[in-house]
């Protein structure tokens, strides 16, 4: 029970990071972007490559942080990867989605996002192999903080929690304290009104993609630290991300953060009553439940 609670919060906070980007893009551009989860895999794998590059460059970079199996180079690699992933997300929008939204409807963009996710996922498989992997050999055996059989906690997992908390707080400050953050909120709440007030929609769309890509990349690294890297990690998460965004109410950034926690906790708790094999179906049930009971989610507006 305690273990499920902890696992749920851990997975939930990772989902929150992914769902925020999804909900932003989904609300501003009004389409369900199925390829968002592939940004998570992308970020995780870019970090893998950069990590080995930095390790090769200098020995001092490969020194581990105290108690953790996370090295300095991994953190630098993650920072670079989140930039790259954000930029790639914006480039994909420029090349595909921008053209489609000018000439066709939102559902055509959903189709395209399915195609893009197929391409990204399998390209990762081609480049990195189909087997799952780890950042380094130590991660699977990270230091245990508690050996209590009721609650197994790894130091790495506390690191993930601290990191997601840090990201959330910075994001909150960015949104509530900066003018760019205000503009982004305005666009996601009412694109038409925001434009009337002189906010540049194209720039905000770009920002939403970059922010979403960067957050997804962090989520990918956290997920890989907690589990492992595999080309299908994005596909396994996509439904949970949608569930989180829908629970929170599409467009609401805080809703997505809370929705991620709820979905993570629910998925983890559900395993206490249903067999493990049915786990992939849990986010689907959450989605159906929300659509029947509260179609606009917790913080969503009528649409």
């Amino acid at each position, binding site marked *: 029970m305690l273990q499920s609670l902890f696992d749920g919060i851990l997975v939930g906070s990772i989902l929150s990071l992914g769902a925020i980007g999804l909900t932003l893009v989904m609300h501003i551009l009004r389409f369900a972007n199925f390829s968002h989860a592939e940004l998570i895999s992308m970020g995780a794998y870019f970090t893998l490559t950069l990590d080995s590059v930095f390790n090769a460059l200098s020995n001092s970079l490969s020194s581990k942080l105290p108690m953790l199996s996370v090295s300095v180079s991994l953190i630098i690699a993650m920072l670079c990867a989140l930039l790259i992933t954000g930029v790639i997300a914006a480039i994909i929008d420029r090349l595909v989605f921008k053209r*489609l939204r000018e000439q066709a409807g*939102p559902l055509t963009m959903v*189709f*395209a996002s399915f*195609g893009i996710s197929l391409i990204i*996922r399998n390209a990762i498989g081609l480049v990195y192999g189909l087997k799952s992997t780890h950042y380094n050999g130590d991660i699977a055996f990270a230091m245990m903080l508690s050996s209590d059989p009721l609650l197994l906690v790894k130091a790495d997992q506390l690191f993930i929690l601290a990191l997601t908390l840090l990201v959330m707080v910075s994001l909150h400050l960015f949104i509530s304290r900066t003018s760019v953050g205000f503009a982004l909120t305005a666009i996601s709440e009412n694109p038409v009104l925001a434009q009337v007030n002189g906010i540049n929609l194209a720039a905000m769309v770009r920002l939403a993609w970059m922010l979403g890509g960067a957050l997804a990349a962090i989520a990918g690294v956290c997920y890989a630290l907690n589990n492992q890297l595999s080309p299908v990690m994005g596909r396994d998460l996509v439904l949970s991300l949608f569930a989180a965004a829908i629970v929170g109410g599409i467009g609401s950034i805080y809703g997505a953060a809370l929705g991620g926690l709820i979905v993570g906790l629910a998925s983890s708790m559900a395993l206490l009553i249903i067999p493990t*094999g049915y786990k*992939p*179906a849990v986010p689907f049930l959450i989605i159906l439940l929300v659509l029947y009971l509260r179609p606009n989610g917790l913080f969503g507006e009528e649409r």
Partner: protein
Amino acid sequence: MIGIISYLAFFLTIALILAITVLGLNLQWGFTGLFNGGIVAFFGAGAYGMMLLGGPERIDGLGGFGLPYPVALSGGIALSGILAVLVGLATTRLRHDYLAIATFGVAIAMESVVRNASYLTGGATGLRGFERPFESLVDGALQYNLLFLAFVVICLIIVYVFLETLVRSPFGRLLRAVRENERAARSLGKSPPVIRLTAFVIGSMIMGLSGALYATFYAFISPQDLAPILTFQIWAMLIVGGSGNNRGALLGTLVVWGGWVGSGWLLTAVAPTHLQLYTGSIQYILIGSIIVLTLLWRPRGLLPEKLGTRHYSKPATDPVDWHSNEDSGKPHAQEAK
């Protein structure tokens, strides 16, 4: 020669079974603008439903009632319909994106059910072995395959004629009305959610028929047959062929399925042994690229939808028929609310 004929019969049988699914999707997406992200779930419901009702008795689980084939087939189709009603009720009154997400979820839920509920579905090993219809009528595998091909062709023709009649009827105009301008349809006293739900359920039942035929042909169904790639292939077929046009859907099926089988064969023949593992990935990338590139460069497919007065029996002054003046390049423009 016999080898070629038997291969051709095999290829065509599978292609035409898939074509039935593509026609079902065309009713949902092409004519009504409903996005089905879980084709494989409705396909699977038909296949498993048929096998459960028509299959031989099982010692290790429920099902295997050995019912006559037409009953089993109808049962499979009905199961797809029930599934579609359950999903549709929750989603068709909402924004279309939700339908895409929910149906995508159905496919994942369906896969975990067929993998785990082994007392019902045989789990990962699937359900196998049952006497196929007309099997006792002919000797020899080739003869049977040709006979079954004929049966599939008949099913395909029935579905095609049914859909063509449907989309040319007043109901068909209503579907396009809902797709193009929901508010206008509502102002005419029609109920878009009901119309959408109806189209969604009919389309899903056609997919169920297709799945049931697929399972009949192999006399076997397992979770492997419900891999998500099937959903992508079906879309690629419809997009390439031209959504909103049933003949386009058929053409797209043959082109994409031919390309899929051909590229698989080519990659296996050309790729070095240690890379054989990756041929699947390359094929998936091809399917993804076909979807994206077609949407970008030929969004209306090989045979685009024909919108115009000559399709309609009523004159263009019909209040619902505003398409006649609106045949711009935006067949699926949704209203952003």
